[in-house]
């Protein structure tokens, strides 16, 4: 007998509350709505403020990626002032972005994602006891180590920028700090200690050995080559996912976007993303070439609680929040960002695919964009960054150049700052008139991934990834939690069922 039920899953947040409403029929998800739950109005707060105020206000959008917001805000102002950023400042910015990204990945893995392996749903999984020892909240060995190691690594940002989170040391034209020889020595030590822990405990091999794994076949032989490989957190993750079927769970439309990030110091970045960045810009998964064009970004508000033009480029956005109604199409405080009119997934997997990383290109061919592939990209992203961070720190030590280059004053114009934050593509668009902010738009990575539908009815990537997911136990839909968390949409997801008879606010009726 067919049984249909609607479930609401509140997802706790960092950069905005999220709730997922799913419809489950015969143990399969048939519909999904991603509902941005909190409205803080940061873009409205920015209006009529001083031109540099984005450097102070916007990091406070998100406590776990505040440095990425700072970088995007500063890069939008670099663009506005046509400021030149000296190579040393690029190095400092890059190192700080990588540090923030790595702390996010490790905390996401060990504090937010892996604790689901201790869910009672896995009581019969042969690795369940092992999972408890590793990931029990506040007690698991890996959890305790993740808290210790991430906070030490973050000291690098404090040395360079004064504090983490919420500093404002990145400014148009560079960074305010002057990094001394002993500062560099301490940063190198902290990064070296982190590398040791990451190699010994997470990879269970050297970074160089891991980077030589270039296909699924390589991965399978790497896993059995040394028993140690199976016992590191990475090997454990691979084994657990395989058995739990996470390798084929949660595919979205497979369209991946990166804004490009980590420019080459002293180099000239090509805005189409073909050169000049460690993480290139681009779009994977469409027919028409992969070159990036920021002009193709738009925001659709057809299903959001806003009044204004239905779809605009962020420079032209002028929307006003409206009171949420229980009826009608709108169901989210998030807007629906679109690239060339369609949704796109962003984050570590997108970065690696746009970079044409052979392992992840192969894994995508074998498994599709699944929970396993998405999460593996995040768990191993640090391996792609650490040696470059070491190089940049070394270059700062040997380069006597400046960290800040003064720019001329400009009163009117606009600027765009695009960066890859821990969760993917982050953009800030600022318009300044007569020396005050006349428009400010931010599109965060979670807005891409947890986007609501657009005017054509296209679901956002996370919504799409939930369709068809088989839910073994509707009281404990752990599979749904995995799919949502694999997008790292900001923190803990928790689940409860809603009795339809109680007349809960219904999901929008007019979705096509």
């Amino acid at each position, binding site marked *: 007998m067919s049984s249909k039920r609607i479930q609401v899953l509140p997802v706790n947040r960092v950069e905005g509350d999220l709730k997922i409403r799913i419809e489950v029929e015969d143990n399969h998800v048939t519909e999904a709505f991603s509902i941005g739950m909190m409205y803080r109005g*940061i873009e*409205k707060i920015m209006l009529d403020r001083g031109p*540099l105020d984005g450097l102070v206000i916007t990091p406070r959008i998100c406590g776990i990626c505040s440095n990425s917001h700072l970088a995007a805000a500063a890069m939008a102002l670099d663009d506005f002032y046509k400021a030149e950023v000296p190579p040393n400042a690029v190095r400092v910015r890059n190192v700080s972005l990588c540090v923030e990204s790595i702390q996010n990945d490790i905390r996401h893995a060990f504090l937010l994602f892996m604790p689901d392996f201790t869910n009672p749903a896995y009581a019969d999984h042969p690795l369940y006891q092992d999972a408890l020892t590793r990931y029990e909240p506040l007690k698991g060995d890996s959890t305790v180590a993740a808290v210790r190691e991430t906070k030490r690594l973050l000291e690098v940002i404090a040395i360079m920028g004064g*504090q983490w*989170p919420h500093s404002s040391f990145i400014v148009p034209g560079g960074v305010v700090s002057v990094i001394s020889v002993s500062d560099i020595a301490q940063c190198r030590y902290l990064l070296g200690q982190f590398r040791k822990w990451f190699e010994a405990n997470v990879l269970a091999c050297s970074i160089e050995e891991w980077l030589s794994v270039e296909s699924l076949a390589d991965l399978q032989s790497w896993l059995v080559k040394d028993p140690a490989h199976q016992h590191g957190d990475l090997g454990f993750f691979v084994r657990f996912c395989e058995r739990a079927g996470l390798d084929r769970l949660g595919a979205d439309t497979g369209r991946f976007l990166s804004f490009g990030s980590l420019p080459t110091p002293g180099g000239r970045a090509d805005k189409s993303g073909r050169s000049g960045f460690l993480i290139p810009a681009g779009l994977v998964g469409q027919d028409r070439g992969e070159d990036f064009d920021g002009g193709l970004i738009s925001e659709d508000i057809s299903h959001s609680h806003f009044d204004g033009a239905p779809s605009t480029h962020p420079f032209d956005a002028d929307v006003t929040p409206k009171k949420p109604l229980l009826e009608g199409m709108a169901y989210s405080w998030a807007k629906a960002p679109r690239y060339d009119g369609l949704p796109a997934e962003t984050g570590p997997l997108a970065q690696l695919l746009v970079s044409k990383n052979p392992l992840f290109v192969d894994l995508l061919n074998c498994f599709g964009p699944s929970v396993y592939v998405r999460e593996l990209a995040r768990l191993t992203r640090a391996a792609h960054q650490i040696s470059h961070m070491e190089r940049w720190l070394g270059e700062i030590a040997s380069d006597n150049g400046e960290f800040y280059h003064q720019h001329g004053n400009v009163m009117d114009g606009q600027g765009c700052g695009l960066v890859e934050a821990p969760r993917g593509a982050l953009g800030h668009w600022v318009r300044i008139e007569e020396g005050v902010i006349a428009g400010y738009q931010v599109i965060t990575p979670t807005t891409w991934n947890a986007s609501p539908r657009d005017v054509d009815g296209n679901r956002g990537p996370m919504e799409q990834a939930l369709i068809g997911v088989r839910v073994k136990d509707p009281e404990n839909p752990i599979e749904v939690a995995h799919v949502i968390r694999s997008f790292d949409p900001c923190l803990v997801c928790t689940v409860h069922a809603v009795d339809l008879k109680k007349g809960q606010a219904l999901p929008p009726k007019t979705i096509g």
Partner: protein
Amino acid sequence: MTLSVFWLQAGGCGGDTWSFLNAESPDVIEFFEDHDIDLLWHPSLSTLHPGELSRLLTRLANGDQPLDVLCVEGTILNGPDGSGMFDELCDRPKKEIVEDLARQARFVLAVGTCASFGGISGGGFSEGTGLQYEKWTPGGLLGASFKTHAGRPVINLPGCPCHCDVIIGMLSAIALETPLDLIDYNTPREWYGIMVHQGCTRNEYHEYRVEEKVFGEKGCMFFHMGCHGPLVTGPCNKKLWNRRSSKTRVGVPCFGCTRPDFPQHYPFFETQNIEGLPIELPDGVSRAHYMAYKGMAAAAAPTRLKKRKTGI
């Protein structure tokens, strides 16, 4: 003795939580063990299912289960139209949950400037307030006369974010039953009885009024760059951030993030001034004497400062 703690995130960025995780000696996990903290709920550290959370909230609200400490981070969002539905938990406005739990808790801590005074999302369309203040004015969600049943007002721990040592220190004082003296705006003297610039490595420049005008220059940032270090209270340069440094030490002006009016309405990175002298001077100083003192100090400045030959 076990201390039960419920940590609620309202309208904020979660930054106080991530700041809390910066703690060292003890770190967060060691601290919980050491003081036998029973963390009933924290949105990023707990795995409680929402059904269980909902039942826990009912037990706490009814007083069936005692609650020692309620920690709130983030602005209380009252919008739209006073409904509080901009921010909900278990299908209820969070502001109602905060009211329920505040009535039962022995201590209520506003962690960070948002929960204390409204902060970044205060006022405006979101109708945001602090727990017991709306910027400088007592009131907020719980009202000026609110006291816990143990007779205490909301203890405000401002900062954007709040420093980890303040959070750990406050919880530890409660666990050890150490009385803490509250000063202006119900902040503990222990951390808010000191000006932010105390301990800043640029203080010699401040002393002789050798001032920075361009980013990256050595000098004090009070006269031109909008630094609030001498104007507002907080332990940034005493405790240091991430055990290493502070914004003012590396050359970022203090933005006064512990103050009830944060974020200020005038532009950051510039000092409001008349004839080059800051409009706002440190609390309680005589303007005429201050001007004379700063003029003489600048005249007496040693060459190594004027030529900026020091390390910072």
